[in-house]
């Protein structure tokens, strides 16, 4: 399946290689680097490439390329999904998935990769199982290890892999038993010039942080499960129960995990929390343009809009901008030509406004297309679809856990065309 893995930095430096079958020379990466050169933007590199003897499947995460080499037919999604799982594991272990962090923890990374694949086929990808075998590095432990000569590799061998709940390790113990669920919804929308919604939908996830002793069996139910149009679950969720009763019944993994992700039925209208009044124009003659953006609340269900940001990728011919913001600060990146306006909290009484002039390279023609505006925002204590958790029940254990649910609405790919 997967023969080899190469980690390649943003600049094209191969800094880690791992082989699960015969060694494949790293010169195979040259084909990839060539394609990367051609594509310009790393996002534009095709994920599946062909070389005379190998097939290259790559992902781009955290300014890193994870490049896997395979010699025979394999479902490309299989490899892509696995590579993302590897990146997720690194993120989970080291808190970040970047070149520096991976270089710092090369040995742990190597040990992880060794356990995750056997002969190119995924062996252990569950975070719970891996953590039993290889302990994540912490400052305390590394200090202790240097003093005592202890190791990161677990002395006990994993039991989870064998049980019928492979995602949960056995013998979990906590003094404070707690279970938190975050319902996070993102609005993906495209608004056109006049503010009409061209396209809008809501994606949500239920992230869980469960720290419960023993083998708890949880049941989470919603007030209005019919809102959910399409769902996908963590393997722990019993699908039959969901199909028949629309409740989530599961034995949770220990720690943080994504319980489910869902899509809200497209029949429902999507409430758009803010409106954007914009006027961006480039003058036909002369090398300047004007920009005027105002943002106001629209359907916020009485909650306040926070962390409001506005990103405007300007045309390449823009030299500089001279703007004034009534609230927050703005920056203009000269290399990427992106205007980033960090508004902060939206005040309905005094609407934030950004206006000023744009200067364009002299001689270059007027940009054909106005840049689109990307909005970022956050609304606490609100799930914009109206989804509500009704109750959480626990079976199988005696103690009373502490339970909590939090709702957050964010802007996903929220774009305003101008």
């Amino acid at each position, binding site marked *: 399946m997967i023969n080899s893995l190469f980690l390649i930095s943003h600049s094209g430096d191969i800094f880690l290689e791992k082989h699960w079958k015969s060694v494949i020379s790293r010169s195979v990466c040259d084909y990839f680097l060539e394609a990367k050169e051609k594509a310009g933007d790393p996002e534009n590199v095709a994920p599946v490439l062909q070389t005379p003897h190998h097939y290259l499947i790559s992902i781009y995460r955290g300014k890193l390329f994870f490049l896997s080499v395979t010699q025979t037919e394999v479902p*490309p999604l299989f490899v892509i999904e696995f590579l993302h799982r590897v990146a997720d594991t690194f993120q989970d272990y080291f808190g970040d998935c970047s070149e520096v962090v991976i270089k710092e923890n090369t040995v742990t990374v190597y040990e992880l990769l060794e356990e995750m694949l056997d002969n190119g086929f995924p062996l252990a990808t569950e975070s719970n199982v891996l953590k039993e075998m290889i302990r994540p590095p912490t400052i305390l432990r590394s200090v202790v290890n240097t003093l005592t*000569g202890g190791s990161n590799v677990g002395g006990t061998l994993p039991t989870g892999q064998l049980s019928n709940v492979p995602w949960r390790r056995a013998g979990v113990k906590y003094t404070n038993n707690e279970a938190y669920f975050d319902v996070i919804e993102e609005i993906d929308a495209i608004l056109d010039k006049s503010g009409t919604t061209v396209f809008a939908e809501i994606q949500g996830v239920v992230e869980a942080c469960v720290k419960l002793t023993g083998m708890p069996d949880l049941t989470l139910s919603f007030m209005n499960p019919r809102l959910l149009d399409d769902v996908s679950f963590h393997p722990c969720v019993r699908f039959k129960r969901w199909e028949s009763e629309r409740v989530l019944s599961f034995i949770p993994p220990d720690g943080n995990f994504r319980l489910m992700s869902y899509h809200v039925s497209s029949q429902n209208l999507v409430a758009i929390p803010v409106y954007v009044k914009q006027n961006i124009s480039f003058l036909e003659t002369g090398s300047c343009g004007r920009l005027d953006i105002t943002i106001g609340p629209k359907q916020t269900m009485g909650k306040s809009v926070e962390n409001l940001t506005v990103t405007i990728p300007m045309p390449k011919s823009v030299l500089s901008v001279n703007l004034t913001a009534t609230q927050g600060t703005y920056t203009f990146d000269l290399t990427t030509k992106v205007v980033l306006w960090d508004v902060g909290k939206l005040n309905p009484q005094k609407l934030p406004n950004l206006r000023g002039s744009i200067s364009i390279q002299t001689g270059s023609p007027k940009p054909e297309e106005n840049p689109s505006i990307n909005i970022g925002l956050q609304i606490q204590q609100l799930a914009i679809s109206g989804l509500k958790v009704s109750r959480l029940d626990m079976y199988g254990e005696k103690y009373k856990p502490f339970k909590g649910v939090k709702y957050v609405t964010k802007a996903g790919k929220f774009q305003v065309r101008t």
Partner: protein
Amino acid sequence: MSTTALYNDQQGGAEAAVEAGQETTATISSGGAAFGLFSTDFKKNEDLKEMLESNKESLKLEAMKRIVQLISKGKNASDLFPAVVKNVASKNIELKKLVYVYLVRYAEEQQDLALLSISTFQRALKDPNQFIRASALRVLSSIRVPIIVPIMMLAIKEAASDLSPYVRKTSAHAIQKLYSLDADQKEHLIEVIEKLLKDKSTLVAGSVVVAFEEVCPDRIDLIHRNYRKLCNLLVDVEEWGQVVIINMLTRYARTQFTSPWKEDGIFDESEKAFYDSDSEEKQGQREAKPYIMDPDHRLLLRNTKPLLQSRNTAVVMAVAQLYWHLAPKHEVSIVTKSLVRLLRSHREVQYVVLQNIATMSIQRKGMFEPYMKSFYVRSTDATHIKTLKLEILTNLANEANISTILRGFQTYVKSQDKAFAAATIQAIGRCATNISEVTDTCLNGLVLLLSNRDETVVAESVVVIKKLLQTQPTQHCDIIKHMAKLFDNITVPMARASILWLMGEYCERVPKIAPDVLRKMAKTFTSEEDIVKLQTVNLAAKLYLTNSKQTKLLTQYILNLGKYDQNYDIRDRTRFIRQLIVPSEKSGALNKYARRILLASKPAPVLESAFKDRDRFQLGTLSHSLNIKTTGYQELSDWPATAPDPSVRNVEVIEPVQEWAPSLGKAKKPKSDKFYSDDEEDEKEEEGSGSGSEDDSSSSSSSSSSSGGSSEESGSASEEESSGDSEKTSSDSGKSSSGSEVSSSESESKQKKKKLTKKATPRKSKQTAADSDSDENGNGPVGKTSSSSAESSSDSESDSEEDSDSDSPAPQKKTVAKTKPKVEVKSKKEVSLLDLDDFSPAPPSAPKSSVFSSSLLSDLEGLSLSNVSSAMQVTSSSFGPVKTYELLHHMTGKGLSAKYHFPRQPCLYQPSMVAVQVILTNSSDHSLEEIHIGDRSPGSLNVHCFNTVERLEPGASVSVSMGIDFSDSTQAANFQLCTKEDQFSVSIQPAVGELLMPSTMKEPDFCSEQKKLMGMNETSATITMATANTSKQNISKQVLSVANVGVVSSDQNNLQRFSGRTVSSGALVLVTLELRESSTALLTINTEKTVMASMLLRDLKQALSQA
């Protein structure tokens, strides 16, 4: 104290050494001589060697860590092999693991030394701890040393019968490793695979199938007896194994079952799904040999379906391709929603999924049409994602959605990503050829693009226009002339060549311009690109043949230039053309035919998808993604004409499962068990094994509600059910016997579903599932057979939901008149049941929305944003004569006649509806009762019915109003007009003008709006008006009679403007009439709805030209 000091000291030294080593490596590798590494690295490696040979575990560990770091950087550390291999038996687990890493990496290079470690592993293989056994086997099999092949073989065989499933799993992995090391062992390995395939552990299943696929993918016979087991285990196998098993089973199924698609060719949509026994009778009348799906085939489809909800994208894709390749056509659409969900995942996932959707959407537009919006391009998407989305949008384009798509394309053309803009132009070209209604609009749009500033855009437009003109060689000389004008400014060779070709091809249509272009080309010939030169020669030749008087000398000049060109292609072409067209002694007979050769009518190029030929590969494979046949790709065979013997899949004796883990078989699907109870043979088997599995199933079913016993051998529960079922079915008119197995958990779920639907429907009842079944059957006094068949088929977990869905309206028609209230309730209920059913394809139909939480919907509706900008408002009043249309003639309506007209008032029920006034007249001699609108077929237009007219006396007439949402298309609204006794199918087809409502606006507003709607959104024509219509008043009267628009007051005398909005979407429609001399006028319509525009134009033209 001393220890620490020593340690630190050494560490510091080693670190320095490593650093030095790194530096030297860096310099050396840049110099290109990697060989020097060892000599300069000598010191460092010595250092590591010392550390490895010390007595301190921590030092050894430190050394190993550094070595692993070297390996990870791809540096050579093979000279340390002897020092490292000594530590293979270390007690420290981490150290041992790192040594394993090293060993596996370098054993191939240091074979002799590697043998030193073998005995350690052999010992470990006998260890009581399963993990140690497994890891020993893992490393042993990873050491690629041919000498130890016999040892590996022995170890694998032993491990394959280990008690621990984990060790057995490891042995399955080892099989592949050994096979790649020594292919001669194949036969022995197949034996082991055969053995492991029989394994019942979910842990082993995935790994052994991987081994099977690698070692002997053609030994399909090994799968037969494990097929059902694999199907049943599937849900519990770990996700990676699921992918491999699903792919393998897809291949297997294509060789073992007959095609479920045959029917589709013969029957139309509604009669597709006759796999169910209750409909067999009907089918028997029509077709001699019905298709019955093999129960094993169904088992596979059923057991893979829940996996569509997996979080693993590869699993979802695997199931999607399985359905695409194996499921009956009408069931495939259940995968759509899940595939669309995957589009929210990472960029790379999107890429692969979009590729697959592109292939699917060519063959099955309908599958993805409801999700069209998900394929809208975002400016932040990567270029390859954008192009794929464009591809899909183009595939999905049809008459109904083309205007939306084209509007999107207009935005895309302006994109800063020029590669994408060019791809968009190609896509517009494809839409134009596929959908004849918009060809002209597209052409106009493309011509506008010719004046674009960007060269690539212009070039691409020229190329596409060339192709379009070729497909439509009508009067397009305007465009050709326009292109000739632009010719001087276009520099892209491909575009220039295309224009020249067009000139030549249609030179007779532009007799004046073509020679002039040739003249210009003669001047610049030498400095042109090759491709342009070739086309110049072509143009010259064609002109010479048609217009030799003017161009003879020019042609000769160009041919002379070409004769001495540097490129031999051009010299060749010139020689050939000269011989062909210039008469001489040598040229002979060909000369006469020169005209026929050069000016033959050419077949138009077909603009088709780049994904057209990808369907030869199995979806979701690497081959499909790259569009080449990759190594190791297994062809998907065609369906066999007759199915091979299905009995090979039967398993005689089933022992109770001996699981190592106590309850590994959790969450087994009772559904699949049910399936076997159909089959007599299987039932017997289950009876035989029933005693053995009873405790098994009871113990597991108590553990969780979702478990219904493990795999096929838990017959006990299913038997109970089937006996209960048979009683029930016998009380039903005895029609459906196999169709209605409802397991206890299922009936429970049904009950729940029913409860849920009851909330939505007004009916209240609290029977149990079984009760309500019989109750309902008892309730239907008339048409019992039809209703019960519909009932049983919708209740049963069989395959015919679709069928009953489409079938049920027919019997209802008969009963509806007599048992109206009852049937109405029933039909409602049925619809909702079907919606919730397993196999219902995502229905975008109206009934569903009523089921959906209506409260929230209304909440949100209140908040909905008005998309009408404040400057303009829609007005309600408009004048004009009212046209009345006949809805129902009194002869066909048995006395009831109905007429309708459009009152042109905003609809009261919903703003998106068009108000329709219906006048019902009773021209019979008796009174008619209960006139109402009957049920509509699902998926039809949204209609707001009028209240039932209780009684209509003879001769009396009554006027009722209703609202219809035509969603801006002239599609007819079909519905049933019912009286107490009869029902009549009627339809209302609106004229396009009635789908508008007037909107008032000031002239400046009108002009500014019009400017926004140029290009593709503009449709215009010159019309000749009847003399009576030339006065301003008459014109507006005529226009208003055709379309429900408002007059825009204007002070210009020769201009008349009208404006309106479409009722459903509120898109602006602007009509401008510019009077010219001698009763002609230029009629222009600007709107986003291009299809409506062309229809409206036609209607207006007709009205204005009539007196």
